[in-house]
Each structure stands twice: as C-alpha cells, then as structure tokens.
C-alpha cells in the first residue's frame, strides 16, 4: 500500500498549479461572467496543452485514461484557481461517453482528448451551455437547451435548462468534490494571508485565538476531505465507487463551505464585496455546495449503500 501521490502525479499537479497561478484566472473568471470568453478560452487552451482532457478519455478514443486519481488531482488545482468554464462537465462527459459509446463517443471523444471540444452536461442545469460545442443530458444523449441563461449566485456559472435534464454521474460528482476542495484550500490560504497582515487594536488579527481556531477548523476539515477524495478515485470501477464518491462529496462540500464562511468572517466587510477577489471563491463554494447533489442527497446515498 502506498496511499500518497506518486512523484509523477505530484509533478503534474504542481505544473498545473504554476500554470494557473500565472494565468490571471480571477480576471478570466470576471470576464467570463461579463460575457467576454476570450481570456477563459485562452486559459482552456493552455490547460488542454498539459494533456488533462486525455486523462479522462480511453485509449481507443485517443486518450490515456480514464485515470481518476490524476484527473481528481488536476481538478483540485482548477478549483483552487477559480478558472471559469465547464472543465468538470467536459471531463465528466468524457467519462460518460466512454461508457455509453456509440457514434457520439466516436465523434466527440477524440476531440475532447485533444482539448478541442468544450462540453456541457445537464445535472440538471447545464453549465456554460452557450459556450459549449456539445450539450449532453444525464444519459449522455445530445440535448437541446430550453430557454435563457439562469442567473447563479456565482456569475461565472452560466446555467441553462436542458431538454431531458439529468442526474449527476458518479465520476462528475467526484470531480465536483475535487473542485470544491481546491476552492476551500484557496480560501484558507487567502484568509491566512489576510489575518497575518490586517492589523486592528495594534496587532495582526491572526494573533487572536478566536480567528486562529476558526482557521484551524477549516484546515482540519480540508485535510480529512482529501483522503476521502483520493480513496474514492481509487474505487473507480468497483461496487463501492458510488458510496465513496458520495462520502467525498459530503466532506468536500462541508469543508469548502466552512472555508467560505470563515473567509468571509476573517476578511470582514471587504470580504463581503464583489470587487475583492475572494468573492469569486466564496460564491462558487456556496453554488457547488448543492450542485451535483446536495450533501443531504449524498448522505442518503451513503446510507443506502450501507
């Protein structure tokens, strides 16, 4: 047994983290929300160059996967960066088409593997369907969008109703959990930085135990959500996958939402503003808390499996 990332897996995550850190993801997310997709598209292209999308596509369709551990690790980095766009949906669609097969798979999987196709998936809303080359319902069938964009708490999440709707796939739920974990990690880091520098009553607010303990609680929850996520990735293809994915989703939802509420409290009034960047992560944390199945639904799934 060796339940830590291999050197290659770690290197891949670090490469992606560095790429995203230098890519102006927050500005891209703001532009995306305002309808300017160019920066987000450029970001998508550079992420695709790392070979990420091929990791969710089987070899017979031009990919190298599915490699759940690698994909989960990469999506955690995407979450940390708040990069806009349907990354989770495209990767989840790749896995879904890999199972459903047929002509859609034959046509689209090679394009997804190359990073050339942006795909949205109804869970039940389809994220960024207006920016997608292909929209699928929950069964992996091509589906039509019905109606205009629905406004999300997170303006970088442009949601659309889709004919036929759909339930989340287990693989997609796992990736959403990975994204949430990355969001939580980013919020913890920005909150710690703020607490070290913001001064009140003549001292850094991070000296106060009340804040220290809030932030320590966030770290505890994040650090114990991560093994659930990686354990679930390793359970891909086994009968326990559904159960383990739901456990990971509950833990990641609770941890990232706690991170968001704590970030808001630690930052005080500035954290409550739109213009200060932590808002991008705070809003996304709440939006994803109940996307891809609420914690209550996933707790129920865990208990059904027991």
């Amino acid at each position, binding site marked *: *047994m060796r*339940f830590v*990332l291999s050197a290659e897996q770690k290197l891949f995550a670090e490469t992606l983290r560095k790429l995203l850190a230098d890519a102006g993801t927050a500005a891209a997310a703001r532009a995306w929300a305002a309808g300017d997709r160019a920066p987000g598209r450029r970001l998508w292209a550079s992420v695709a160059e790392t070979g990420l999308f091929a990791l969710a596509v089987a070899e017979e369709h031009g990919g190298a996967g599915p490699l759940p551990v690698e994909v989960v690790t990469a999506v955690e980095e995407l979450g940390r960066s708040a990069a806009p766009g349907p990354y989770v949906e495209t990767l989840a669609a790749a896995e879904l088409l890999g199972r459903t097969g047929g002509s859609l798979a034959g046509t689209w999987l090679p394009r997804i593997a190359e990073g050339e196709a942006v795909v949205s998936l109804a869970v039940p809303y389809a994220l960024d369907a207006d920016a997608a080359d292909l929209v699928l319902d929950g069964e992996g069938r091509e589906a039509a969008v019905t109606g205009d964009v629905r406004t999300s708490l997170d303006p970088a999440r442009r949601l659309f109703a889709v004919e036929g709707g759909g339930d989340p796939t287990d693989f997609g739920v796992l990736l959403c959990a990975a994204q949430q974990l990355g969001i939580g990690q980013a919020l913890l880091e920005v909150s710690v930085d703020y607490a070290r520098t913001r001064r009140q009553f003549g001292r850094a607010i991070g*000296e106060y135990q009340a*804040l220290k303990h809030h932030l320590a609680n966030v*770290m*505890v929850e994040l*650090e114990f959500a991560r093994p*659930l996520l990686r354990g679930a990735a390793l359970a891909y293809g086994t009968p326990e996958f559904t159960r*383990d994915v739901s456990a990971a989703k509950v833990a990641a939802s609770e941890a990232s939402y706690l991170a968001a509420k704590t970030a808001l409290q630690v930052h005080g009034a500035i954290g409550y503003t739109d213009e200060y960047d932590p808002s991008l992560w705070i809003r996304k944390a709440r939006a994803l808390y109940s996307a891809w199945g609420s914690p209550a639904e996933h707790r129920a799934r865990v208990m059904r499996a027991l």
Partner: protein
Amino acid sequence: MDLDFGPEDAAFRAEVRDWLRAHVPAEPLPSLETEEGFAAHREWEKALGGARLGVVSWPREYGGRGASLLQWLVFEEEYYAAGAPGRVSQNGINLLAPTLLEHGTSEQLTRILPPMAAGEVIWAQAWSEPGAGSDLASLRATATRADGGWLLDGQKTWSSRAAFADRGFGLFRSDPESERHRGLTYLMFPLDAEGVTVRPIGRLDGKPAFAELFLDKVFVPDADVIGAPGDGWRVAMSTAGNERGLTLRSPGRFTAATERLVGLWKERADPSDTAMRDRVADAWIRSRAYRLKGFETISRSDDIGSESSLNKIYWSELDVALHETALDLLGADGELESEWLENYVFSLAGPIYAGTNEIQRNVIAERLLGLPRGAR
C-alpha cells in the same frame, strides 16, 4: 498510489482474526476503570502478550514481531472489530515505549519493554499537576540529586490508570533555578515505592479512571532517567507527538464503533428520521476519512510533526459525536449502563487530554498555517 494490502498483510489479518475469534471473552470484561475490571484486563494483556499480539510493531527482542505500521493498523482494525477488551497497557505501550525506543538505553529497553509487552507491568502517566495542565511547562514537582539517583517530591494529578497500575512516568524539575521547559528531567518510578501516596479520583461517572499522586522523597535510581537530566522536555515531546498521532487512537476503534452504530441505526431508527440518518452517515464518513488518513500517514516518508494535532481534533470530536448519536438512537435507554454509555463517558475525555483541542488549534494555526504567536 494505491490502497492495496499485500498477501503478507492479508495472512497477518487472518491470523489476528482467528486468534481473536478464539480468545476474546464472550462476555465483555468489567470496566477497566474498576479494581475488578483492571485485574481482568491485566490477565487479558498477558494472554495477548503470550501470542505476541500485544505490541506487534515492536522489535521481536522486546516482545513484538517487527510488523510494519500497515500491519499494526490491520491489527487494530481486527482488534476493535472483534470487540476485544480496552487496552489497560495503553499508557505504557503507546506513550512510554515510543520514548524509550527513541531515547532509552539498551539496558532500559531490555529491562522495561519485555514485561510491558507481556502485560506484567502496567504503566500510568504522570504529566499534569494541580497548577500545570495545558501549561505543562509550569510544572513544579521536583527531582533532587541524591546518592546514585534522584528524590522526587511534589504532586501529580489526572494520572490515568494510576489507581491500579504498577509504575509511573513523568517530568520533574531537576534544576531549581530553571524555568519553563528548561531544567526538567524525564523519570520513571514505582507507584508502590516508599513516599508515594495514590489517591484515586472518580471520573465523570464515578469510576476511578485516574488518580492524584503525592510524592515525598521518592528515590529513583539513575537507571530510571530517560535521556539526559535536564533534557526531559525534548524527550517528552517525542511522546506527546506519538500521543497526538495515530497511536493513541488508531482508526480501527472508530471503524468498528461505526459499524456497530450503523447496526444500531438499522435496528432502532425511525426511517423517517432523516436528521438521525445524516448523523450516522457523518459518523461513517468521518471514520472512513480517519482510516484513509491513517493509511496516508504511514505511507509518508517524513515525520508528520505538528500535523498530529489535526488527527487529535478529528478523532476526539468524531468519538464524541459517534457515541452521542448512539445514545440518541437508544432513546430512553441511553442513560442506562451499557457498552455505548461506557464508551461515551470515555470519549468525553478525548477533547481534553493529550493537549486540549484548544491547544491543538493553536498549534495548527501557528505551526501549520503560520499565524503569528499571540499573547497567552
């Protein structure tokens, strides 16, 4: 990255499971926090030691079998799944022994570890004092130089297992001019020595789980000093690290308790009570997280250091929540004497001992997150 057990691990698991199936008492032993129960648990430790199952990860020469940490985790899973008795030897095997293995002389290892492994000598910890709890470095009990050894004076308290144990270990101020964590010495002493008075203290449910120790010129030979005189704080901190890490509460305890909780839920729960279902789900999810974290910890090549504080908060709060959920499922029976209640009372001490969870949160904030150290 994988979660696979090798064939040797599987064979080891089978051996442990078979032995436990044949030997675990059909009826639970009386509480180990009572005189009668303590004696029964001592006998159980001897049986475990006889099968070389008391301390599987220790070297063979001291009574272990040189098992890997993964096999130790496997042992713990099987142990708790079998409903085997609580470990009355815990202070010795989990707190003192790791310190001895790191800092002890070969004479100490040879003299002290085999009887500990065999369940012949049961150890009590003697860290806290009336004025030194979370602030352990303010301790005042003294060790004064004497011919061939030291004389111990002062008072220790909350000394778990001391009501019925054989020997104790703790820190004493050996340099009267010293302050805080300097000038302390780590010593071991017999609880039946001349000058030692043991006054048992009833824990929340009245059982004498710990004791006060009054020490009046208790002689300890030089051979029972661990590490160098005056270097006790550094020596003891290696024990504290173990205590907060995996050894104090291995994941097996929670995995097994959660299995039982799920069973209780199936038997007792109102199916429409989704709030209760969610609490049981959370206990299961968190037990699994702690188990996986354990596998991660033993897979790492580096020392987890202050990260052990993350573990301590996680397991101690899980333990309380899990047992509270069980009592709530039991409804009106929740207050009646039962294994659930015994373990609930036991769990309530978790957030307090081995460094309160507030101290652990300070450690996390300052050493792991890098927040500034503030006024104390």
